[in-house]
């Protein structure tokens, strides 16, 4: 499985962005699983904010604090039921300064 190039730190990029995090209300949910489907695995690399990571048990987890709300994971993961995607509550989430 492809992993992200360690030379590129997405966290440094996201650090420049403005967010209003809706604490405790993640707008994306990953369906509980024991082994990830190909669609879920694809999210590890395709997500531009690297919100998806493998946990110690080899399952895909999401931390959406840095989410830029592009919808890529919805396109890949929603048709198969792997993830459930909603908009953040009004006013919350990424707040683009320039867009």
């Amino acid at each position, binding site marked *: *499985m*492809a992993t*992200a*190039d360690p*030379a*590129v730190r*997405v966290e440094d*990029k*996201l650090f*420049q*962005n403005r967010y*209003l995090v809706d604490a405790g209300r993640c707008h994306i949910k990953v369906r509980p699983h024991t082994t990830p489907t190909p*669609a879920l695995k*694809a999210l590890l*690399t*395709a997500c*531009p*904010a*690297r919100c998806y990571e493998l946990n110690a048990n080899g399952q895909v987890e999401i931390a959406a604090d840095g989410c*830029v*709300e*592009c*919808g*890529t994971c*919805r*396109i*890949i993961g*929603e*048709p198969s039921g792997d993830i459930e*995607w*909603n*908009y*953040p*509550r*009004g*006013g919350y*989430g*990424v*707040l*683009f*300064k*320039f*867009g």
Partner: protein
Amino acid sequence: MIDEKFDAIVVGAGMAGNGAAYTLAKRGLKVLQLERGEYSGSKNVQGAILYSDMLEKIIPDFREDAPLERHLVEQRFWMMDDRSHVGLHYRSEDFNEEAPNRYTIIRAQFDKWFSGKVREAGALVVCETTVTELVQDAYGKVIGVKTDRGGGQIHADVVVLAEGVSGLLGTRAGLRKIPKPTDVALAVKEMHFLPQETIEDRFLLKGDEGVVIEAAGTISEGMTGMGFIYTNKECISLGIGCLVSDFQKTGRSPYQLLETFKQHPSVAPLIAGSEVKEYAAHLIPEGGYKAIPQLFGDGWVVVGDAAQLNNAIHREGSNLAMTSGRIAAEAIFQVKSRKEPMTAQNLSLYKTLLEQSFIIKDLKKYKDMPQLLHIQSQNFFLTYPQLVSKAMQNFVRVDGTPKIEKEKMTLKSFTSARSWAGLFGDAFRLARAWR
């Protein structure tokens, strides 16, 4: 929350939603526009280039107070391999005209301005409110929306869905399908800040002149994709995008591609010493004519990116968005003026008007292009750029080899990489799709 009934509810305040809400309000309709961002623009991402003609048809005197960055005097197309680019540059003094044709803009600022115009026109604009559901009656007719502000349903005669490329409402309600990974590109973009004079020196600009660079080639690593560099007043928008299906297939990350693009010897000097102030990502509809969903129904129309209206070949999206919004509004106004109900049959006028406009005509022209470029991505985005680069180097490098030998070498490199049949086939397919 809001008890009154509206003539129209517009969901979303991007280019399409603002185009629709402004036109509806100007025509005297009672309009409610709902936007989930803290203001119009705070969730919106684009390169971004503004095409004057389409905005003039909505707000003729926009140049008086719209936040515009630079008017474009030069367009560069680059075909890149790892160490070089072959460029086609078009720069003309004709673009230094009284009313310039294209500008770079910064969407968060521009959309805020556009939204101000929508309010001035008389629409009620409510931000920080996410629409969670379309309300349908027993017959499936859309009669209103529900939001995350509680307070139950808000009713309207018609709902304009301007909810963006992966809009949830329309897909959840079964009005259209969620776009396929082969029909949308994921683009990532950074804003690189530099002193104004530095940008003007590096791109040979004076005053508010601007340059656009569109780049394709090995930067997308064989995937269907493109890079772009746009000059704003005090910053450079730089980004790259590829089809979501290609990212899915290759396991490459968009930020890796972005870093490689930034480090390319043709790009690095343009952004050297810059301060990056934002990183954004966005989906772009790439399916073209064949991906356009059902555009209207009982009590609803869909506009802009949500309707997948984007001309990928000419990199036009926001103008199609604002125009589709305006046309939908005009259709709604006509139905309303005739005092007729907002049925699918009456709202089909929107599609008829859209077909008469440049939008559908342009998308139809290139209807076979997406498939060609998507299926043949290795050839068009990897093999050909490398071959062309090699041919150029062979042409300009003086090393004592007789020219006739050089020409043979170049020809041989093409035929051995792609074969005569492949070359003619590609040329034929490209010409047919372009026609």
